[in-house]
Every structure is written in structure tokens, then in C-alpha cells.
């Protein structure tokens, strides 16, 4: 029973990882919390649903979600953040601005969908259940794990094994220094935003498939969960977010399975609060959060 729950948690955690990685990536390079990330995730689910409802294959839908969400994320950067970064008030400003963008995107989605709750057609994904060592796993779950693993792996290769990744890491470390070695940080930013949005989009599709409940406000809880995950993993840390997402997925399924239903969220956010108090830079972080307060 516990093993089954842990497996389920791990699968959900993989999807959370996709969502949280995009969120933490943006924070890593710009110290910006993009609160429109949840709305972009929602758009991902809707785009795929639309493509599938036209009778086209799911894979095409996912591809469409990647492109649309990536571009949407770049648009959010352009409209909400590019100006603020010039004036230097991005910490407070970006939160406000991206809340605004989230509200706008959500309303547009709400209008287009007439506030309906949608679900993928039943035959979108064949229902098949496999048993292995007493554990049950569906084909859909396998697909989710596959997608998540593939994308996380691709992201790692991109960041740690390519020149593009070196640019991202250079910009993350120090914007001024990176311009000295002829990196155009703005181009790098735009690419990172595309990746961030694309990951959120895929996460949206997978969540839409798994829980067959696609509606305009579906992103909000995931955004809140992403807070927990990125803090747990250390804001801006890619490896941290991945591990934290898996841990979070398991913790969540366990609390849902074994604790009174209403208490899950209380526990999750209490945990977030406690982590912030004890280890504000995450379980794997090193330095203290923020700048000086006094003698340090």
C-alpha cells in the first residue's frame, strides 16, 4: 500500500518537476518570481485539449502546447519584466506585474472556454494497467514518467553540456560579467523564458490527462505547490527543484492517503513555512537567503 502510494507520488512528482523547473529557472537568471507561470500551465492543457478535440493526435497537441506556451512565456517577459529590469525595481514590481499577466491570461482562457470544465476524450489514451511486483501502473502513468524523465534529462544536457547552457549559467552568476565575454543576456533570457513556458505547457497537458479536469483556474494550486518545491530545493537550483518535486509528490500522496482530507494543504504549507524558517535556501542550499542584516 505504502509502496503503491510512493510510486504514485513519484509519478506526480515528475510532473511537478516539469512545472517547478521552469519556475526556478527564471528565478535563477533574473531573481524574478513569475506568478503567471500557473496561467501558462493552464494554457498548455487547453491547447492540447483543443488540438485533440479537432481529431488530431495527442503528440501534435503536446507539440502545439510547447510552442504556444513557450511563446506566451516570452511575451510575459517582454510585457511584464523587460521594462522593470531597466528601472531596477524588479523584485516587487515583477510579482505585481506577473500577477497581472496571470489574471489576464486566466480571464481570456475563462472566456474562450465559457468557464467549462473540460476533459480529454476517453479514447485519447488507451487504458491499460500493468502489474509489477505487486505494484500497479497505468500506461498513462508510464507515459507521464517517460515525458517528465525525457524533458528533465534534456534540460540537464542543455544546461550542463552545451554552450547555450554555459551562457545561461554565466548569466545566472553575473549579468555584468557575462556581457564582458560578449554574451547578449537578453537573447539568453528570451530563450530561458521559452524553455520555462514550454515545460509548464507540457506539465499542463500531463495534468490534464491524468486528472481529466481542465479549467481556467487549474494553475493556481500548482503555482502554490511550485512555491513549496522551489523553496524546498533552493530557489534557482535546478537539481534541488527536481529532487524536491519528487519528494513533494510522494509527501503529498502520502498525506492524502493517510491523513484526514482537509488537512493536506495545511500540512504542505506548514512544511513550506517551517523550511523557510529553518533552511531558507532549501534543503540543499548553502548560503543564507538574501543579503546582510547585520554582522555576517
Amino acid at each position, binding site marked *: 500500500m505504502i509502496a503503491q502510494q510512493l510510486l504514485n507520488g513519484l509519478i506526480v512528482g515528475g510532473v511537478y518537476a516539469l512545472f517547478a523547473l521552469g519556475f526556478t529557472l527564471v528565478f535563477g537568471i533574473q531573481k524574478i518570481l513569475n506568478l503567471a507561470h500557473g496561467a501558462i500551465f493552464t494554457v498548455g492543457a487547453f491547447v492540447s485539449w483543443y488540438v485533440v478535440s479537432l481529431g488530431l493526435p495527442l503528440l501534435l497537441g503536446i507539440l502545439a502546447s510547447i510552442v504556444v506556451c513557450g511563446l506566451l512565456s516570452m511575451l510575459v517577459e517582454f510585457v511584464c519584466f523587460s521594462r522593470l529590469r531597466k528601472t531596477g525595481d524588479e523584485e516587487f514590481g515583477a510579482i505585481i506585474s506577473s500577477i497581472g499577466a496571470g489574471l489576464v491570461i486566466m480571464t481570456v482562457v475563462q472566456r474562450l472556454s465559457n468557464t467549462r470544465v473540460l476533459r480529454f476524450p476517453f479514447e485519447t489514451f488507451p487504458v491499460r494497467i500493468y502489474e509489477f511486483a505487486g505494484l500497479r501502473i497505468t500506461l498513462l502513468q508510464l507515459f507521464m514518467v517517460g515525458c517528465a524523465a525525457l524533458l528533465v534529462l534534456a534540460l540537464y544536457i542543455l544546461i550542463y553540456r552545451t554552450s547555450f547552457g554555459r551562457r545561461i549559467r554565466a548569466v545566472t552568476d553575473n549579468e555584468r560579467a557575462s556581457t564582458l565575454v560578449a554574451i547578449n543576456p537578453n537573447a539568453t533570457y528570451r530563450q530561458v523564458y521559452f524553455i520555462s513556458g514550454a515545460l509548464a505547457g507540457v506539465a499542463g497537458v500531463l495534468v490534464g490527462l491524468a486528472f481529466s479536469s481542465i479549467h481556467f483556474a487549474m494553475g493556481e494550486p500548482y503555482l502554490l505547490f511550485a512555491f513549496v518545491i522551489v523553496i524546498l530545493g533552493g530557489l534557482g537550483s535546478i537539481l534541488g527543484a527536481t529532487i524536491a518535486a519528487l519528494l513533494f509528490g510522494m509527501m503529498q500522496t502520502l498525506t492524502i492517503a493517510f491523513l484526514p482530507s482537509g488537512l493536506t494543504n495545511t500540512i504542505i504549507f506548514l512544511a513550506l513555512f517551517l523550511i523557510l524558517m529553518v533552511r531558507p535556501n532549501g534543503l540543499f542550499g548553502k548560503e543564507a537567503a538574501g543579503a546582510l542584516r*547585520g*554582522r*555576517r
Partner: protein
Amino acid sequence: MTELVLENVGKTFGGVVASENVNIRVPAGRITGLIGPNGAGKTTIVNMITGMLALSSGRITFGDTDLTTMMPHRIAEAGLARTFQNIRLLKDASILENVMIGFHMAERSTLLSALFRLPGAAKETRDTRAAAMALLDRFGMTHLRDHPAGSLSYGHQRRVEMMRALAADPQLLLLDEPVAGMNEAESAELARIFRELTDEGRAILLIEHDMRFVTDLCHHVYVLDGGKVISEGRPADVLADPVVVTAYLGESIDAA
């Protein structure tokens, strides 16, 4: 007389040595200079004195008070005030408001009287305003009192910072490049004010790039390079010191 004393002060960041075995005395009634080429470690010293950075070794005392592990605001309470190299004023607030902020420690109205603006708090604000006006007068800036700080010239902004620092009636003033961006006449005027301040018994620690200004004004100069004091003494002697000349090679000595 209170004197600021740095004893064998050192600071390392990770493995990098930023300051090593620094010994500096800043006596009351005198102007002490701290000079050195860019990256010599002047800012590190300033940050350690003001409590923004923890010391790796050594200790700092001010009269009978040990500042070594004190929180920054307690150090200010002990009688140290400072200005900043990169001017830090409330740009949208007026000159007068900026100076009034400096009176924080002189003001004692209770929370309750502030919340309900009882007569005591109102009177205190009037007194603070009057005291701030007196400072503005001393620095010849009364006519600019309502201007937003951000709209003033560099030289004027530096003077506002000095007034704000002086508002707390400090025993020691730490001035980080106070004449940068000022013209000849302006810096001469400041030099006069500095002498007045030391005549009142205050100590001044002057961190400067402008060598001529330092030579004219300081009683005693410390030269910092690579985190160490490489020379100290009367300004004329220090400038003639071959070690100092070598340290400044490649950098223009006369930045004015």
C-alpha cells in the same frame, strides 16, 4: 577623548584575504586619511568598522566601547556616523526630509504618541525640523530645502549626506570619498567645514582618492594596498614614500 582603534584587523572571504593585520587609529579632533589604489581594501575596512561585515580577526574599539561584534545600528548609537561612496539618499524626498531622517536617534517620542500624534510627537517633529534647518543653514543649502534630493548636483547630494550624518551629533565621522564630483570651490568649502567639525572635538576618517585634498587636510594618513597598511605618517612623508609611489604606479595619483 574617544579614539577609534583598529587592532590587527583581518578579513578573509573564503580563501581570499581582503584585509590583513590592519592597525589604524583615528583620534578625536583630527582628520585621519585612508587612501589606496582601487581594490586596496578600503571598502572592506569601512564595512568592518560600521558593522556591515564580520571581522575574521582582530578587534575594533571606540573609546571604551568594543565594536567588534556589535550590530550596525548599535555602532551608530555608539557615536559613529558615515556617508556613502555611492550617494544613498531618498531621491524622491526633499532635502529637508532627508536631513530630518538623520535625527532618528535624537528623537524619543513614544509609539503611542506617534500613533495618535499627541502634542509631544508633534512638538518633536517641529524641533527636529528646526534643527535640520540649522544644519542646512550651516552648509549653505537653505534655499534648496524643498527640492527632491535626486534633482540636485553631485556635490550638493554629498553635502546632504553629510548633514544627515551630522544630525546624530556623532563623535566620529566616516566620510567615503566626500569630494568626488565637486569642483575646487566646493571642496574648499567642505574642507573648511571639516576643520570646524574637528575643532569641535570630533574625529574624522576620510577615505579618499583625491590626493591633493588629503594632503591639504589630513593630519595623519594611512595607505592601504592589497589589504595591508603599507605606509603611514604625515601626508607629505607618505607621498614621498617609495612603497606608496610603487603601489600607485599605473594609476593616476592626482585624480582631481
